[in-house]
């Protein structure tokens, strides 16, 4: 079977090449997708905040988390077990909040509160994440810690990852990565701008062909024309790849239920998803379709504690 391996790897390589956009992905060591909500919006998630998945989408967004939360995320692409992703994320606000906010998670429809009256965790929010992509022959494992802080209209965040890439028969490589994120609420409850830079040090993975972990810059807007609708647009540029444009729509007819659609230009991938938010639980599912490669599935569940403080 030894001689089949290169072919097998080249097939996986083909998958990476084809699916580089929706996720600039966990494949190719990119920032990846976190949470089926982001997946349903074709990962146009850099301007989203306040949910545990902001840890991977834009670390500045965790600054809005008010309760300790934990989330699990699973992803399967094109029905291949070699392309599975699993991630576990925990977010902990530091310091008590002065007011007793109702439990919010990023999913709930935004309450129209004067921005001055809204408060955030006094000492910011810290989050930890463990993530794994791949199968036996090739896999990437990362553990990361992030910190987000919000003051007034602005949130800032940073995270550090330890990334390990392992290839069967070739051994593994470990590197450290740094990520920075920022968000500005341009119009309170209506328009948010977000930007995130993954791997700012352009860490090198191997000297052979100067292989580096991708450096990816994302910038985008989240716009809420009304209480039920969220529109997101985002552009993502990997230094070595063509620019990707992503757009998504989230519609929440009732606070409990959300429906989502998304598009990504580079991969020509369309996605759709649904979400349930019940009290402290949040459950999301998304499916994405690529003409040549077929369907991928995303599922995430998260829970937060301590609604009333």
């Amino acid at each position, binding site marked *: 079977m030894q001689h089949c391996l290169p072919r097998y790897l080249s097939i996986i390589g083909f998958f990476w090449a084809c699916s580089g956009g929706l996720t600039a992905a966990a494949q190719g060591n990119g920032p990846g997708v976190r949470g089926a909500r982001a997946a349903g919006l074709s990962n146009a998630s850099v301007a989203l905040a306040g949910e545990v998945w902001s840890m991977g989408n834009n670390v500045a967004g965790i600054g809005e988390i008010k309760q300790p939360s934990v989330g699990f995320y699973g992803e399967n692409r094109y029905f291949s077990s070699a392309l599975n992703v699993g991630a576990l994320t925990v977010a902990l606000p530091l310091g008590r909040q002065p007011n007793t906010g109702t439990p919010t998670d990023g999913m709930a429809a935004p309450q129209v509160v004067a921005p001055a009256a809204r408060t955030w965790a006094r000492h910011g929010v810290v989050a930890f994440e463990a993530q794994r992509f791949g199968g036996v022959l090739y896999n990437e494992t990362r553990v990361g810690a992030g910190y987000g802080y919000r003051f007034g209209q602005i949130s800032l965040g940073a995270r550090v990852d330890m990334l390990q890439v392992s290839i069967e028969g070739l051994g593994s490589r470990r590197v450290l990565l740094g990520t920075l994120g920022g968000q500005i609420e341009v119009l309170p409850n209506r328009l948010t701008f977000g930007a995130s830079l993954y791997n700012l040090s352009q860490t090198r993975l191997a000297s052979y062909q100067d292989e580096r972990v991708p450096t990816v810059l994302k910038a985008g807007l989240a*716009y809420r*024309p*009304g209480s039920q*609708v969220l*529109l997101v647009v985002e552009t993502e540029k990997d230094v070595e790849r063509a620019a990707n444009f992503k*757009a998504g*729509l989230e*519609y929440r007819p009732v606070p409990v239920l959300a429906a989502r659609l998304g598009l990504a230009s580079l991969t020509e991938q369309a996605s759709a998803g649904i979400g349930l938010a019940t009290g402290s639980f949040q459950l999301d599912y998304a499916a994405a379709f690529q003409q040549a490669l077929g369907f991928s599935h995303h599922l995430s569940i998260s829970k937060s504690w301590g609604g009333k403080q």
Partner: protein
Amino acid sequence: MRNGLAGLVAGSALLLSHSLKAQDYVRRAPDLDRLTQELFAEIQSDQVPYEDLYETLLQYYQTPINLNTATREELRGLLLLNENQITTLLKHRQENGDLLSVYELQSIEGYDLRTINRILPFVTVQSSNANRSRGTLWQRIAREDNNALFLRYERVLQQRQGYTPPTIYQGQPTTRYLGSPDKMLIRYRVSHTKDFSLGFSLEKDAGEQFIWNPKNGQFGADYVSAHFVLQERGRLKTLALGDYQLQFGQGLLLSSGLGVGKGAETITTLRRSSLGVRAYSSLLENTFFRGGAATVQVAPTVQATAFVSHKNVDANLQQSQDSLAQFDEFTSGLLYTGFHRTASELANRHQLQETIGGGNATYTSRDGNLAIGATGVFTHYGTALLKRPEPYNRFEFSGKENLALSLNYSYVYRNFLLFGETARSSGGGLGTVNGLLASLGPQVDAALLVRHYDADFHTLYGNAFSENTRNINETGVYLGLKVRPIAQWEISAYYDQFRFPWLRYRASSPTDGHDALVRVAYSPTKTSLLYVQARQRLKPRDLATADLVNIAANRVLPLPGEQLRQSLLVYYNTDVSTALSLRTRMQTSRLRDDTNLAWRSGYALAQDVSYQLNRSLKLTARYSLFDADDYDTRQYVYEQDVLLAVSIPALYGQGTRVYGIAEIRLNRSMTLWLRYAETRYRHQGTIGSGLETIQGSLRNEVKAQLRVKF
């Protein structure tokens, strides 16, 4: 906008017969030019029957919809209202009784001034629609003020190759046009909404002859069409005799008129309306049925339609050389140009008998929210069809008979509108189109449409939503969005992804592509509009042999090239005063046949001025420049024309295009239009090709039209 609609009255109605209706508001002439441009993203082919669209809009204008009696389906047919607006209007009617005047629209939820301004030309408010109270049918026809006789004359002033004396080539005289270069048209129509329509058209194209030869079905003019339609005679809803059109469901089997596809109007045009039987009075020589059709109210909620049509269509008949062949005599396809100018075009004229029969039954719930319909269409050709034996024709229709059956549905639930149609044709090919329109709030509308047409699905008169010109060999998903973030601004966008599972003409492998558009419109005042529109379309196409040789080195298979077209359109329209309006249009596009081939580009810039001198004279002129590398990057620029005519020339090469129109009201019943247009080319010794060739670098056309009202 403090003055509300009152300012609208200032707009003087040009085409208006001053009928004293039960309303105090003078309808403005619709800006059809602007509307057409809004409904079509950007004109990229001459395949779309703009004539029909234009005609339909004009029809609405001349016989506006009565907001007090219009059904949900009729309001959708306007293409200008979203489902929420229709629902609130119907609710308003239910709760408060009939509208008293159009001013009342402002009080209905969801009707912003822009919407009201857009629909005003096409609607009226009248107390009731009792035809009988207006005398007998003949009296009503005689008294109708919406009647008009049009006489039109058109000619290109330069001599074209086809009109020169024939030369001798290899002992044979060369082909020439048999008729004169004049194009002439006579057309009469009288109609009243939900009552009657009566009319005829006679047309001779340039190069065609006037011949009286009843044996060949030639009665003077080359194209003759007439119709008589009666509506609302008790249980008989519609009776059409002569030429008519049909549209049911999503137009998968029967579609006419408003087959607006992807456009800058990203939401409302997705869904086709079940318009049923309509009179036909356009000039396209083969998009109609000829015979009879009737719609009957079988039960309060059920309408049934039956139709039959028989006509001879143009086709090239061939004899099979092989005694074992499938058909002794066959035709490789119908000819749709409608031109009969040369001996060979005349030989193909009306060679193929086409008999069509079918019907439709539609159930509409009492509240109008649910409609379910079934349609059947049976076609019989006198001679078998057999397309050329090319790989891309592998699954095309062949034989003499085709039976297509379909089911369609449409359902409104709160702010969602679901609709669709699924059909099966002889041989088992399936076609389905399903969509969802959602008003997600006062500022946001979204749309989703999924379609799939088998490669062996044969709909011969259908024109449902598709990327291809016909509903065959295609799978696709369309997402549309419209956002009004703040007053006066509107952002529309769509993304359409499609796949062609079998080969197409000029695409010798299964291919897929996408089409995306973003449009930002700003209307600072009610008479000015500025919009910017960007579009990108990826649609693979076979490469030219020369290109293939160049890149064959890094290509395993001679796959079609990834043809990418990007275009940008900037449009500004403003009325400086009630008399003077200005319009600027800049459009540019670039095209690349494959990822590593060079871009080719086209550009056009046009400035229009329109000035109403006094009540009886209006002058319109355009000066435009164009510069396009080749035919593939040609620019289609919509031009104003005499009433009822549509002009969308394809401009390529380098040069200028200029036209002027004078609209003169001679008296109360007569209006005269004069139009002069010229195209000047740089660096070109000849214009056009084949029999249309003109020596020199100038082409100019004159057109005159007289309208007489009785």
